[in-house]
């Protein structure tokens, strides 16, 4: 093959790669664009502070040509309660477990636990929903915020473990050695030196895991179930923003609320996502 054809081929490949790589931005822009355009107008004070209307009320409003009353406050409260409860348990457990894996990385027990963490991370969220149903909903004889947060806890845990372990592992070993050389025990070295040094990475992992479970619908379907008014108790069915989107999707009368709720969820999740990365970058500098 002569040189000209080979160079031409090389150029064509470069442009093809650039073209297809650029194409992946299209769905992102299309999705964000659609949600923003259709949803931004629906966001209002009452949308954020009032619970979801009943289908009947919504139908009446549509028939009368008025905007649907109410909003997604029940979902926001439920999401806050469930994600908050899940995070309070998952963060310490996840960090300690990550510390265990980083400290004992060569031990057989750690290899097995690391492997099982991968397994848990790869488990479909719907299965985690089923499991929490079996473990929590059936014994408690009812759907509840506790069950929902249990499912979210199981989803968060492997994510926090992984990010903690990975951040601790890339710390220079001299850090640990320096601490031990001063006569500190391993507990103090981990708590006072290694974990603070790894704070940026762990914080990023925690924020990303929160952003991830906030958008989850499947594990809440048969655990939190949903609820059409604002509820603060944790042993009763409760709603969540992604759960509301799913309800609006299935209920033709409520479909007008779908984009506002999606806009809110997407804004929250992606902001958290970008913040996490920004903070990690700042912290590392």
């Amino acid at each position, binding site marked *: *093959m002569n*040189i000209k054809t*080979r*160079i031409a081929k090389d150029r064509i490949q470069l442009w093809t790669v650039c073209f297809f790589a650029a194409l992946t931005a299209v769905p992102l822009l299309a999705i964000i664009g659609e949600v923003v355009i259709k949803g931004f107008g629906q966001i209002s004070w009452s949308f954020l502070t009032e619970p979801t209307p009943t289908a009947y009320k919504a139908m009446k409003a549509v028939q009368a040509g008025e905007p649907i009353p109410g909003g997604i406050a029940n979902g926001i409260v439920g999401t806050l309660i469930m994600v908050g409860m899940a995070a309070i348990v998952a963060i310490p457990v996840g960090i300690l477990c990550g510390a265990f894996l980083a400290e004992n990385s060569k031990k057989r027990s750690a290899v097995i636990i690391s492997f099982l963490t991968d397994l848990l991370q790869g488990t479909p969220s719907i299965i985690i929903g089923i499991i929490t149903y079996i473990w929590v909903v059936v014994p408690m004889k009812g759907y509840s915020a506790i069950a929902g947060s249990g499912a979210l806890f199981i989803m968060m845990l492997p994510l926090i473990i992984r990010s903690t372990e990975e951040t601790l592992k890339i710390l220079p070993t001299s850090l640990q050695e320096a601490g031990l050389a001063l006569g500190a025990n391993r507990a103090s070295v981990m708590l006072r030196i290694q974990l603070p040094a790894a704070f940026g990475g762990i914080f990023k992992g925690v924020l990303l895991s929160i952003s991830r479970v906030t958008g989850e619908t499947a594990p809440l379907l048969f655990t939190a179930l949903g609820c059409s008014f604002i509820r603060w108790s944790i042993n009763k069915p409760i709603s969540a923003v992604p759960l509301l989107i799913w309800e609006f999707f299935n209920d033709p009368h409520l479909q007008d609320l779908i984009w506002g709720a999606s806009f809110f969820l997407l804004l929250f999740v992606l902001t958290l996502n970008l913040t996490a990365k920004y903070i990690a970058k700042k912290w590392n500098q």
Partner: protein
Amino acid sequence: MESVKPILEFKNTCVSYTKQTMAVKYVSAAIERNTITSIMGPSGCGKSTLLRSVNLMHNLYSNIRVDGEILLNGENILDMEPIDVRRRVGMVFQRPVPFPTMSIADNVMAGYLLNNIHISKSEKAKTVEQCLRSVAMWDEVKDVLNKKGTFLSGGQQQRLCIARALAMKPDVLLMDEPTSALDPIATNHIEQLLLELQKEVTILIVTHNMGQAERISSHAMFMYLGELVEYGDTKKLFSQPADERTKAYLKGKIG
């Protein structure tokens, strides 16, 4: 003295990594056909940078600029297509890097495979044998040609890399400290090999090792802080260096 047309000629060659700093400054030198020329100097003096400019390796990195002229058989390679130049100018690197996914035979023929040059099976077998013979490796590997080259010793791997470069029948062979990662015995092998090879190809070799330069090269260059300080006959450069800096280097005071 009869003047022979040089195969390679640097004319005011400059290489810069940033706008302010030049790694190679206005080097001019002519290299004669079928000679071994060694480039010496303390680390960071720009000798590898100069060598790599002949193979247009700098084109791979957008921040590096090469100015002046480098003539190969009278043609300025800076105006030529890099892939064309690199076929005519072979290069052997510091660390032996056979391609791990290719067999020994394919490693020798890598240039043909990479450049999509199709040749007949018998011709291929002939080239493999010829190249491996010229690096004195044929007898060692003739039974394992279809195995991956990764089990070979460091010295063998480096010879395989030389064979790979020779297979393209280059006019000039560039070597960037080819023995610095090898033990003394393997180094000795390679040195003997280079003395043989200069019948076929012109060799430009960067070396840290003054003894090596003295043993193998007919011409020597001494570079310091990016400048070509002295260039000439090896024996003369070692016995009667003209420049104070060369003298200091040979005495081990710099570098």
